[in-house]
């Protein structure tokens, strides 16, 4: 089982969600986050002084999928989220040790 974490532009959330659903992936967790990579922030004015805001709003999606679903999930995210500009985001993949369904104690891949 693999965990896929994707940090995205907030405006791409709906498109990515839809693309994942189309790829047959239904479970996900969505978090509001702030951050930046190489993307510069924006400047704001307060009382005549300029200052830079470099913690930008982001959205983070977390999914846990079976190993065979990894590439289709990644492709779904990329195709929906890519604009070609700096700020598109990143995807990280890590291994998951265990998954448990709280409702009925199911474990392993059938809990996903």
């Amino acid at each position, binding site marked *: 089982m693999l965990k896929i974490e994707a940090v995205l532009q907030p405006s791409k959330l709906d498109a990515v969600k839809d693309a994942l659903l189309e790829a047959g992936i239904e479970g996900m967790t969505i978090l509001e986050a702030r951050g930046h990579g190489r993307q510069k922030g924006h400047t704001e004015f*307060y*009382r*005549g002084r300029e*200052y830079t*805001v470099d913690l930008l709003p982001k959205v983070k999606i977390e999914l846990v999928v079976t190993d065979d679903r990894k590439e289709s999930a990644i492709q779904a995210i990329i195709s929906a989220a890519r604009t070609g500009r700096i700020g598109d985001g990143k995807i990280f993949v890590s291994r998951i040790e265990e998954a448990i369904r709280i409702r009925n104690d199911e474990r392993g891949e059938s809990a996903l």
Partner: protein
Amino acid sequence: MRCDCKPLFFSAVFVLPVAAQAQTSTPLPPTQAQFAALQQAVQNAQSNADNAWMLVSAALVLLMTGPGLALFYGGLVRRKNILATMMQSFAMMGLVTILWAVAGYSLAFGHGNAFIGGFEHLFLRGVGLAPNPDYAATIPEQTYMVYQLMFAIITPALITGAFAERMKFSAMAVFLSLWSLLVYSPMAHMVWGVGGLLNANAGHIPSLDFAGGTVVHITSGVSALITALYLGKRIGYPHTAMPPHSMVLSFIGACLLWVGWFGFNAGSALGSGPLATSAFVNTHFAAAAAALGWTVAEWIHNGKPTALGAISGAVAGLVAITPASGFVQPFSALLIGAIAGVFCSFMVFEVKSRLGYDDSLDAFGVHGAGGTIGALLTGLFATSAINAAFGKGMPTGAMDGHWGQVLNQAAGIGVSWVLSIVGTLVLLFVVDKIIGLRVSTEDEHEGLDLSQHGEEGYDLNS
């Protein structure tokens, strides 16, 4: 020959039946008693009209503090301090009311000497529903007292802008209570009280302050500066950006201030007649011109017009027109507003950052500076065509040729600056020694809502 026959026709309809009746009983001239009763009825009608406007004005001025100022200041601070900031204004609504009823009104408007009133109205003794002809001959003295109370409430509340985000609630309550009795009441007495040093009627240095440019705005603004300097900067200022957490709240607050100011200025006519109209029009014109002035200045200076600049400009204009509102012509008001908008923006953009003091919410830049320039411009633009303040036929301001009035205004400004500086320094020192003024570093980091009040302004998780 064409005649305007309609009025003739209508009066005939009414006159003919009366004329017909008159042939049966001769109408008598009104008796002395009836005439006196008629005169009283007319007087009552005038009084009731004045009282109605004055009560509405008092309510409008209170609205300026709660929620006007509470929202305006509240939106400008960081989220962790919103409740504490609003509490400071609200606390004045409670505290100053008690102090005013007990002693404040008496010290401001009782008979005393040139600098302070007396104790004849302690606990509002003698302040009933009959008018006090020294101040307002057509309204109950309690109306006058409660109207003035609203001014006494907002003045210390304005000072809270300078020490936002770092003063202890307890210390603030004690400091501002003492300030209200020992700085505000004397200043009010000097400018508006019978026998006051700066009273336009018979004072030693007659100064023109229609609604409180010196009494309210210079005292609060200058005291704010002293407090900001005494307390020191907020932790992290100026390197850390501390932008407003909610310009939305500030915007709403500023608009409430603008509307409430009609009570502040037009109510200072103490009646519902044409002088109130003058003050109303001037107030509005100055606010609009100043908002534009600040906006244009900022657009040129920074490249973008900000909402904060626009609303600050409007407030600056309202401050500047306050002493002038019942003395100048509408286009003078426009000019006063425009000048104040540009001048106050300069004070905030350039002077504040160059000198480096942390007047968190620009109480000095807007109220202190705006009040000062407004009081000076009053001397320039006041005209007996609007208000023959020094007597019928006497010139009022420089526009009438009375250039000496500008000097009188300067003297009044000087007195308010000195009283504010000395009074505030002494009180800050005393309260600091007894209670301690500033919150601890941890409390300042945690935020005053939690550290001073055990509350959070917004619970975004519930």
